[in-house]
């Protein structure tokens, strides 16, 4: 899988994020958007960051690209890419990493393309920004090649099209082509298929998988869709209200989830392969305000299993003897969790009543 990839940093990780914190000063106070995020990604790996709106998953991804830098933002922690810390790097250093080492694909392909420039010109601009020695003609050849690679039919012809002449799926392919233009070793994809129909989503996910296999690039996929995650991810990072609450391999998270929030997420999905139960085991309440997050575990106010110890923040660590890389932030004993997380015969968040409020 990882053939043709340069050796990453010493510990085997291409990117290592350590205790990342991002906060924004606003009129109402300080918003702790990211409050302790750690994870690593190896070459050729697909890591999914899963969470709901406001969980800090997009801010995490954008911070890695330096896109959250603004006068009201403060950063703590490190993100080592190739031995270089992306958090403390200068704008000039980051500019080289962006598009070169790390590339990003955004959720909305319409608003991330320039509507008045031809597609080809936009891809060529990106190629030449990072490779000064390439001629215009060569860059156009490369652009056509990239478009073909991501499955755009009649690629050379369509370089002359404008973004509005493309459908949503085709635009997203263009975004991926642009991201690939400088052979990135890490692709950050922020909800790349959320705006697309399921049939097109399946095509794009397949495209990403093939690219990973062909180029050995690692992919960080930010998403809220656990179906997409099950389809493509190797490892999962679950975020809630700015913190990583659990991380592990695909099978660990789906079959042995340790955090009650993960149980709630898994239980809330209306699945096509299960009996239609009378009520979905929903998570009660709403995510907390990041201006005034609850004391201790952020999930405590919505958690039916909370007890007095939960007012202290649990450390993100492995609590399972046989799975040292399966980390979670929950005070409950693993044995107890295995009993608590079963609702009916499925994993879900138990609650005293059928939750509707």
């Amino acid at each position, binding site marked *: 899988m990882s053939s043709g990839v340069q050796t990453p940093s010493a510990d085997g990780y291409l990117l290592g994020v350590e205790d990342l914190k991002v906060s924004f000063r606003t009129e109402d106070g300080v918003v702790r958007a990211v409050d302790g995020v750690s994870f690593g990604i190896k070459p050729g790996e697909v890591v999914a960051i899963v969470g709901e709106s406001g969980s800090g998953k997009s801010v995490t991804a954008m911070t890695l690209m330096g896109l959250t830098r603004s006068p009201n933002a403060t950063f703590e922690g490190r993100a080592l890419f190739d031995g270089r810390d992306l958090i403390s790097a200068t704008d000039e250093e980051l500019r080289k990493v962006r598009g070169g080492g790390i590339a990003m694909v955004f959720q909305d392909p319409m608003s991330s393309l320039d509507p008045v420039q031809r597609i080809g010109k936009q891809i060529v601009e990106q190629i030449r920004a990072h490779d000064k020695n390439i001629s215009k003609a060569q860059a156009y050849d490369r652009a056509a090649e990239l478009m073909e690679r991501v499955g755009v039919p009649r690629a050379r012809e369509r370089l002359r099209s404008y973004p509005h002449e493309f459908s949503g799926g085709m635009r997203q392919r263009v975004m991926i082509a642009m991201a690939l233009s400088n052979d990135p070793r890490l692709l950050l994809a922020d909800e790349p298929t959320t705006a697309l*129909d*399921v049939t097109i989503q399946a095509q794009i996910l397949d495209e990403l998988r093939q690219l990973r296999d062909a180029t050995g690039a690692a992919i960080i996929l930010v998403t809220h869709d656990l179906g997409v995650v099950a389809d493509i991810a190797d490892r999962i990072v679950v975020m809630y209200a700015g913190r990583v609450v659990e991380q592990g391999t695909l099978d660990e998270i789906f079959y042995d989830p340790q955090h009650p929030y993960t149980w709630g997420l898994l239980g809330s999905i209306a699945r096509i392969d299960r009996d239609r139960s009378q009520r979905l085991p929903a998570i009660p309440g*709403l995510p907390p305000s990041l201006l005034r997050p609850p004391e201790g575990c952020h999930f405590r106010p919505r958690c039916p299993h909370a007890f007095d110890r939960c007012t202290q923040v649990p450390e993100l660590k492995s609590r399972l003897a046989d799975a040292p890389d399966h980390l979670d932030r929950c005070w409950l004993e693993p044995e107890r969790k295995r009993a608590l997380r079963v609702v009916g015969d499925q994993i879900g968040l138990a609650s005293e009543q059928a939750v509707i409020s």
Partner: protein
Amino acid sequence: MSVDGNGDVIDVEAAAQADGSSAPDGTPLLAVDHLRVLFPIKAGTVVNRKIGYVHAVDDVTFVLNEGETLGIVGESGCGKTTLIRTLVRLVDSTGGTIRFRGADITNADRKDLQPIRREMQMVFQDPQASLNPRKRINQIIATPLRIRGVPKDRFEAETRGLLDKVGLQPEHLNRFPHEFSGGQRQRIGIARALAVEPKLILLDEPVSALDVSIQAQVINLLDKLQDDLHLSYVFVAHDLGVVRHVSDRIIVMYLGKLMEISPAEELYTKPIHPYTSALLGAIPIPDPNENRARERTMLTGEPPNPINPPTGCRFHTRCPFATEICSTAEPPLTQYANGHLAACHHPQHVTASEVVGAVRSEASPLSAGEDRPVT
């Protein structure tokens, strides 16, 4: 879940007047007959010429019974939203009829529609855009109460009752829409729809803008309200998991045409139309093992342009089973057992004897041929 048909006597009479006949018992709540909605495409700055039509809804026939939830699924541009907007007369139809409790409302004017709009309400996809940002919640809910003729001194009590029904607190009454989260706003939209005591609620992607955990809350709420208030729903969504969870029957649309109608569960275990199979196959199942084990048909290409839809079966350009006939003759809707209908020349998951026993449905598009399906 069937409820007796005489909800509001006055409204039934009013509805009956619109078409001059009475509504006998057993009449479906909503009957849609060969409905077409075409949007003209205009060109030219001086003289407006019509240069073509977008075939948004093209000859669609179905019924909705009392207390039933009918799901409508399809990709963007398949006409599902236009269809339900036409049902509440927000969009005018080009052809066909819409009957509500037997009364023809296809061309009914504002006055005739008023009693019907009280029975038929809509909840929109974007709760942010469908609530007036400058009005407080009690004002938003008071308007439909006034229309219902509730005396002013009852407003407060009624509004509190409605908020309670949708799981909001009384202290929310004086707040503005922006003070709520997406899920709460959708509850306000539902409370507003409930204020006129409707029989039928048309839901246009009511949960797709919400996070999964909040989606589950809203779906559970809709479920509970249906049981308590004997509502009928038309539920439009692109998420087949959600639709399956709420629906009794499901309609699959593609490029303005009806591809399949099936009892909810059966659509997932026995999809007859290849398009339905492809849609189902495209959904990633949130279970790694099942996902790995499953065989999936990957659909290539994208939906064709609805201005120039393909001849014959609209799906033939992307269909893995397409043959000569698919591009020349439009397949009729064929009725199989269990009221399962599909418009396909090459039906899947059916036995030869089922095909022999199948009949051409009355609901078939007028332009469809007489061809029998082949296995």
